[in-house]
């Protein structure tokens, strides 16, 4: 692990306790720990998630995410296959973790 | 003197049995029953609930779903026991009533069912790893106790007879606190001592399930939507 990750306060599943502790280098390191190198395409998703969270205080539903990514960045990106290629563990969970968003709770 | 002590013990045992069960029932009824938790699909009418309880109490319906061997062994044991208890009602009468005669006539089959059932239940508990895991010493001892009572009963009935009329006098006496002598018979004393233990254990052990099953909310509540 890295210095940034080691000093983090996370919940029991690795989600940040506070969004204030998020930074771009941290996201890079979190992804690297999973063997992912963040590309421009990843950042598009991460930034959208953060923007949505700013507005609605919750991560977007996967359907909203795909639709909005498609609208903003091109139709070919507006599907869950594309998002799963970027975030193999699932965009909802993995991308939210890199973006420093809390995990949605409930029957999801 | 000894006979009188045994007589007093039985008088106390009857009292203990009745009060013990009454106390247990009062504990159950005293607990609050706030929510409807019948096991669905549940009967919608009171008659339907009686039907459900009847099937559970007299046919062990849920057990039949679960495990055929246990079900058959339990049926054999419980009905064998019921039959035997009816036989023992002879001791309540000075003159043998006619309705008990067929029970006595075929009593050997009931005893056989009772003993076979108990042996299967005991073997099951001893041989299956899941059963061993969930069993406490008392779970085995209940079965062993019942088995010993049955076998000692067979002994005094078939092999080493005793004076049944005197036994009847003795028992009728225990209900009216008129303690009579017992026949001088070691086998009988063993049988009766074991029965005393059973009567003592019944209301304070899992044996009380026979009464408790009708108080189970999953069975006795109806679908009141």
């Amino acid at each position: 692990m890295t210095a940034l990750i080691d000093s983090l306060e996370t919940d029991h599943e690795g989600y940040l306790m506070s969004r204030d502790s998020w930074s771009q280098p941290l996201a890079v390191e979190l992804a690297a720990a999973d063997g992912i190198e963040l590309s421009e395409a990843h950042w598009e998703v991460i930034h959208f998630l953060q923007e949505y969270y700013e507005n609605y205080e919750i991560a977007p539903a996967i359907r909203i995410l795909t639709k909005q990514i498609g609208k903003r960045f091109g139709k070919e990106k507006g599907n869950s296959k594309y998002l799963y290629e970027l975030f193999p563990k699932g965009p909802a969970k993995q991308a939210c973790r890199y973006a420093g968003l809390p995990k949605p709770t409930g029957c999801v | 003197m000894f006979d009188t002590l045994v007589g007093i013990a039985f008088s106390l045992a009857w009292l203990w049995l009745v009060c013990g069960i009454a106390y247990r029932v009062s504990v159950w009824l005293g607990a609050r029953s706030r929510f409807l938790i019948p096991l669905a699909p549940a009967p919608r009418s009171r008659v339907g609930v009686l039907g459900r309880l009847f099937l559970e109490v007299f046919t062990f319906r849920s057990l039949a779903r679960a495990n055929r061997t246990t079900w058959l062994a339990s049926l054999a044991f419980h009905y064998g026991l019921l039959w035997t208890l009816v036989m023992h009602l002879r001791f309540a009468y000075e003159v043998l009533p006619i309705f008990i005669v067929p029970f006595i006539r075929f009593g050997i089959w009931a005893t056989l069912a009772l003993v076979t059932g108990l042996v299967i239940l005991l073997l099951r508990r001893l041989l299956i790893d899941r059963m061993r895991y969930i069993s406490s010493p008392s779970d085995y001892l209940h079965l062993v106790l019942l088995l010993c009572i049955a076998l000692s009963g067979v002994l005094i009935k078939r092999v080493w007879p005793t004076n049944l009329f005197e036994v009847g006098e003795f028992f009728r006496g225990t209900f009216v606190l008129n303690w009579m002598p017992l026949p001088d018979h070691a086998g009988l004393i063993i049988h009766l001592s074991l029965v005393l233990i059973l009567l003592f254990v019944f209301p304070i052990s899992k044996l009380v399930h026979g009464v408790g099953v009708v108080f189970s909310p999953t069975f006795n509540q109806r679908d009141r939507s």
Partner: protein
Amino acid sequence: MNADKHTPDPVVGRYRVIPILHEGAMAQTHTANATPAIQEASGLPGKLVADWHDRAIARLGELLKERRGLQVFMDTCTKCGACTDKCHYFLGTADPKNMPVARQDLIRSVYRRHFTLAGKLFPKLVGARDLDKPMLEDWYRYFHQCSECRRCTVFCPKGIDTSEVTMAGREILAAIGLGQQYSQEIIGKVNSVGNNLGMKKPALANVLESLEEDILDETGLAIRLPLDDATADMLVVTPSADFFAEPHVDGLIGMAKVLHAAGIHWTLSSEASEAANFALFTGQHDQMQAIALRISTAAQSLGVSRIVMGECGHAWRVAYSFMDTLVGGFDYLDPEHPRPEHICELSHELLQSGLITLDPSRNADKVVTFHDSCNVARGAGMGNIKGGQFTIPRALLRASVPQLVEMSSDTTHQKTFCCGGGGGLLTDDLMEVRVKGALPRAQALQAVVSSDKVTHLVAICAICKTQLSQVLPQHDLADVQVTSLHHLVGDALVL
């Protein structure tokens, strides 16, 4: 750090074989304790209290007086063993403490020690035990490996309901400072925001608007998903997963289509934007009441005359069996519909009265099987006929798809197996329990996939849908689509 560290290896079990006991097989399992902040928000101690032993025993004594079932179940078990091979968690894990009777005995042995004559005098003889630290740890561990699905009750000749014991165990644990993070956090969010997700009204409105757009694109019709519409006649309360997760969202869309086609003036509520009631799982009756109250309060403030519950298993149990007790009568409802209804009940009624038309040929590419959700199957009824919870969803399905295949009858209807994620276990830190617990369901499904080429598994519970879509791939069943019943109804609907 790695979020998927809990993902176990794929499970391949032999079909319907009772496992040999493997003691301690799941002893390493741990679901996170609720944080002090979460506990305290519900008025519970933040961490394990110093006098936990005495408080736990005292609370057990209170619960025995408050819950007749618990008291009777403590006394009547004969250890007959009928339940020992009936629990999906036992079948999947082989851990003996996942046998229902062994799970009950975690409390029963303590009950005997403290509340029975025999247990006070001869503890060893009757299996009475002290509540020591290892026992407390077992309580926490194994009461969180029970989904409270009540399958064992079906086979119990005494009618013992293990879920009542599990609920009591969890209630005591939370009361001494050991709540479960997953369930307690959710209960907190319902109380503070209105739903399990913590989705506030603007987000909810945004989702519904987006879905309306999607429906318009798909059908060309302006089908609405109204929120807080005070002119509506019907309040629909659905699990918040329907606003967020796949495949749940398609079920919500299907419901909207049905209600639109029938011309019903309905609404969702932002105050009662959650059907689920996790306080049932944790055995906390006061919380269960507070959550149920949100629904009746919303219904009354919106002035609706009907309440309809969406596809959620335990919500339906609460609505059908407990609502009346929890929040008092429904005199504000239409006398024709005097209690909360299930969406399946409603759709079925619309179908029968000809208000909607379903064309199964629109689902011609699908071979479907139905997974009875435990809380619906064994916790509630449906319609006004005994067994309606089995017949009504199936009648709807038969009208919506050309081919409905039944799984083995010892895994459906009253004997249905839990999906493995119910009762507050649908959390990543219990993934191993969830995958293994899904084994019996997966095996039954595998059989119909092989024999009848089943393509879709239909459920009417948000937990079942999430759980099965996550764990079926672990059982080599990634090709089976998990679907909402109302997704298929919506697709078959002639608009």
